[in-house]
């Protein structure tokens, strides 16, 4: 019975991981930027939710648009006017650059929101659906549902809209994209904006289930990282799968081998997937092949 509960926990957790990972993966696949500031951006979303909840009593779920929109704009500006200036430099320069942004954002948050751990606890927190011995907290269920929904919407957006197709084309070949009249600078910015907006939403949801502080940015980024690798870069469905796998691996390894080996096992599995199938489980031919 415990094992069932543990598996379920893993899947629910996985929904959140998928949401934090999907934007990261998208940015990586399309712009070839590993955005180390992703976690920090997610935390900005968490602070927005906290702020609205504390001062205006806005329900955390209702605050999602309020964290999406400003961070979407923030992401757009960041890519358009900063990252685009250097996208053609060596890939690792970009890595360092996003790390610089992370340091900046984390310290910014520490200065303005303090290093305190915060958490958003609405009245209905802690209510659970109980089926026999199995407990399903409503909040986690809702978070999971929202994560799945958003991921699916994103998938639709990428496959059905002109902008979505342009994003796909740009991720395959920037030069060729320019030849057909796509402005990659704009596409990059939109991609980054979407990713940031979704990170913000993920952060908002995060604030409901966990305590957060600026210092947690790194570990969120690491999760996003693993999700992208597992699922395959730039692949929305991949992120969903990767997230759920990560969730299950974490809870299951914690149960079977012990909490203290959880990270080691998760990372070992990530390395294994890398070695066996570097494009990730759902990686598609020609996408996100190592670009230099």
């Amino acid at each position, binding site marked *: 019975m415990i094992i069932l509960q543990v598996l379920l926990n893993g899947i629910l957790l996985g929904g959140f991981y998928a949401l934090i990972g999907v934007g990261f993966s998208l940015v990586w696949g399309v712009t070839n930027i590993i955005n180390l500031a992703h976690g920090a951006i997610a935390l900005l979303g968490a602070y927005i939710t906290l702020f609205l909840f504390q001062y205006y009593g806005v329900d955390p779920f209702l605050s999602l648009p309020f964290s999406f929109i400003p961070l979407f704009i923030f992401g757009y500006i960041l890519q358009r006017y900063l990252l685009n200036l250097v996208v053609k430099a060596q890939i690792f320069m970009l890595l360092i650059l996003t790390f610089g942004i992370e340091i900046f954002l984390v310290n910014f948050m520490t200065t303005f929101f303090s290093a305190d751990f915060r958490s958003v606890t609405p009245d209905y927190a802690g209510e659970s659906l109980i089926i026999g011995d199995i407990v399903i907290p409503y909040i986690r269920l809702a978070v999971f549902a929202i994560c799945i929904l958003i991921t699916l919407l994103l998938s639709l957006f990428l496959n059905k809209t*002109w902008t979505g*197709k*342009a994003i*796909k*084309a740009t991720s*395959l*070949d920037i*030069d*060729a*994209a*320019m*030849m*057909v*009249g*796509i*402005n990659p600078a704009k596409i990059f910015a939109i991609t980054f904006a979407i990713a940031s907006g979704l990170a913000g939403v993920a952060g908002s949801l995060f604030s409901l289930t966990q305590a957060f502080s600026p210092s947690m940015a790194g570990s969120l980024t690491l999760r996003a990282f693993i999700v992208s690798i597992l699922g395959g870069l730039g692949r929305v469905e991949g992120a969903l799968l990767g997230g759920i796998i990560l969730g299950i691996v974490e809870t299951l390894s914690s149960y079977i081998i012990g909490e203290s080996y959880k990270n080691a096992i998760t990372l070992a599995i990530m390395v294994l997937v890398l070695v066996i199938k570097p494009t990730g489980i759902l990686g*598609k*031919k*020609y*996408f996100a092949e190592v670009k230099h």
Partner: protein
Amino acid sequence: MKFFEVRNLNTGYGDLQILRNVSLEINKGEIVALLGSNGAGKSTLMRAIVGRLRIWSGEIIFNEQNITNLSPDKIVKLGISLCPERRRIFSGMTVKENLEIGAYQRRNGLKERMEKVFSILPRLYERKNHLGGDLSGGEQQMLAIGRALMNEPELLLIDEFTLGLAPTIVEILVDVVKKINESGVSILLVEQDVHMALEISNRAYVMEVGEITISGNSKELLENPQIKESYLGM
């Protein structure tokens, strides 16, 4: 009034100047060939025309509009398309998706245009659900041309479209280019097969180390002794 004109163009990469005072014009409905040995700067000129390279000085006029240093997407929108060297198709997208995205700046009438492209290039229709990257070299070149046509360009720039292709395929592609031209599209053609280029074009320019040195009627150039010696190897 000129359909397309390049005036005293200077440009290059970083500090390095490649093109010097290049001037050239294309009239509506013409095929113009651009010849020159390797590294003369032909591809560079094409890149400059479509806005991929900053122009240092000089200007480019298209349909009475100054398009100097416009961004590539605006130039594509105005109706200039480029089939770049080495094809550059989207390997991870199907043939159909490749064509669709070719219409990014001309979304109306996409269906009809795709029909038209398929009728010019029937081979693409047969492979419409295959990934671009899985096509053979010749098919990829057809796809590159087809994709450019989806933008309904008035001026089509084609860079070395026969490179590394089997003679049968070259033959087919030459016919395709002629057909496209007959449908009203003006073409600027860069080609190493000087014979073929001069045969299908109306006029031609010869570029040497970044400068235009010879220009004139293609048929006449075929007989030009200088051309014969240095480009036709006779």
